[in-house]
């Protein structure tokens, strides 16, 4: 279209219609002269009159957005003549469906891993708590027993050799005669042996409390708990006996009753205390010693 007086070139719409592009042309801002194909697509689908009708039904502030959508719709229809924008929408719906399905699959797998991880953590926590509780019980028993001194052990209890620390082999690899598991009383004696033995060795072996712990870790914890209580009770009874028997240890072993300076009453008390902790065979031998001593 020819221009007059240096006026701006006609828009693509006016150029197509072969008419003068007036300044008030509604389509001029949206169809510049160099975008003829865009206008052709829009004109092919909507038509100029219909586009102008749509623009006139809207507020001027909405014209730009409306023209963008119109041009987009026309271009898509040119690209896809049969389905147009509906084809694009269907494609997007399908994409969304595929993504949601994939997300569901991934989340399911993630949940499986989470549960597995949580289960493993619970198992580890349970094992850790079990270890802590057994150690705590051992510490408590030590405190209640109150044996921190490096008192020399009695020969009676000194026959036990020190056992190295083994968690798993409390009974199987022990050098000490393993106590019968059914006899709780013997278990208590056996535990006392171990305790005194480790005390005899003093603090040279840092694993002594652990050794005690290892010995206390019997397969059945309930009998052990009863045994520990029994140890406490027995030990309370034994404690004054140890204090009084220090001077008399050699007396019992060597049968040198004549050298002893203690009275018969104290000996009787000693024998009474010993009866509660010593077997019947030992009692008889001790009684024999006393009888010989009393004769002389």
């Amino acid at each position, binding site marked *: 279209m020819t221009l007059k007086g240096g006026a701006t070139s006609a828009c693509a719409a006016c150029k197509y219609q072969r008419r003068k592009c007036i300044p008030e042309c509604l389509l001029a801002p949206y169809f510049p002269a160099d975008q003829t194909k865009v206008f052709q697509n829009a004109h092919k689908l909507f038509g100029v009159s219909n586009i102008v009708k749509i623009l006139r039904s809207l507020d001027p502030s909405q014209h730009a957005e409306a023209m963008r959508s119109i041009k987009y719709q026309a271009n898509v229809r040119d690209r896809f003549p049969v389905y147009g924008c*509906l084809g694009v929408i269907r494609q997007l719906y399908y994409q969304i469906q595929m993504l949601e399905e994939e997300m569901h699959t991934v989340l399911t797998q993630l949940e499986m891993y989470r549960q597995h991880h949580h289960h493993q953590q619970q198992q580890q926590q349970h094992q850790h708590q079990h270890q802590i509780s057994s150690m705590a019980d051992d510490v408590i028993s030590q405190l209640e027993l109150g044996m921190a001194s490096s008192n020399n052990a009695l020969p009676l209890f000194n026959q036990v050799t020190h056992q190295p620390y083994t968690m798993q082999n409390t009974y199987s690899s022990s050098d000490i005669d393993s106590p019968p598991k059914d006899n709780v009383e013997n278990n208590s004696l056996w535990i006392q042996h171990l305790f005194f033995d480790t005390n005899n060795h003093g603090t040279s072996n840092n694993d002594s409390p652990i050794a005690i712990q290892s010995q206390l870790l019997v397969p059945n914890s309930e009998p052990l708990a009863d045994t520990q209580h029994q140890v406490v009770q027995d030990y309370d009874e034994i404690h004054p006996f140890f204090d009084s028997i220090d001077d008399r240890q050699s007396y019992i072993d060597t049968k040198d009753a004549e050298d002893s300076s203690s009275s018969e009453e104290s000996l009787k008390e000693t024998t009474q205390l010993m009866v509660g902790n010593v077997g019947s065979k030992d009692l008889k031998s001790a009684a024999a010693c006393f009888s010989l001593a009393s004769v002389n």
Partner: protein
Amino acid sequence: MSSSSYSSSPCAACKFLRRKCMPDCIFAPYFPPEEPQKFANVHKIFGASNVSKLLNEVPTFQREDAVNSLAYEAEARLKDPVYGCVGAISVLQRQVITLQRELDATNANLFRYAYNEMPPLRPPPPPPPSAAGQSSGFYYPYQWNDPSDEDNERSSGGNM
């Protein structure tokens, strides 16, 4: 022309246009008289002549789909004169982008969990709507370049 032997009722298009519905009427198979609103919408937005030209360019077996898509677009444009069916496209495209990002993050999480045995991270929050770069916030998924034009449509401010 005698209309007495003419038994078939006119199609919705011919009824709307108040013209005789010929046997070879291009609209008749796709605009039955029981659906008058369908043609009315299409005619209001696109115009009968434009629809006729479009149908003539499409193979016969695809004309029904073409008519249905035009009917859908016309109805959408009547409901939303500014954006029409393009509004739905923009919403769906954003949804696709968001889902894709979430899926990527979840896959990364799964990978970390499976191979490193570390607790999974939370997926990142969706990006702000301004990522589309449009003043209206609408996203146009298909970029259309005019092959005959030197300038792309970016000069007109469109992502098209």
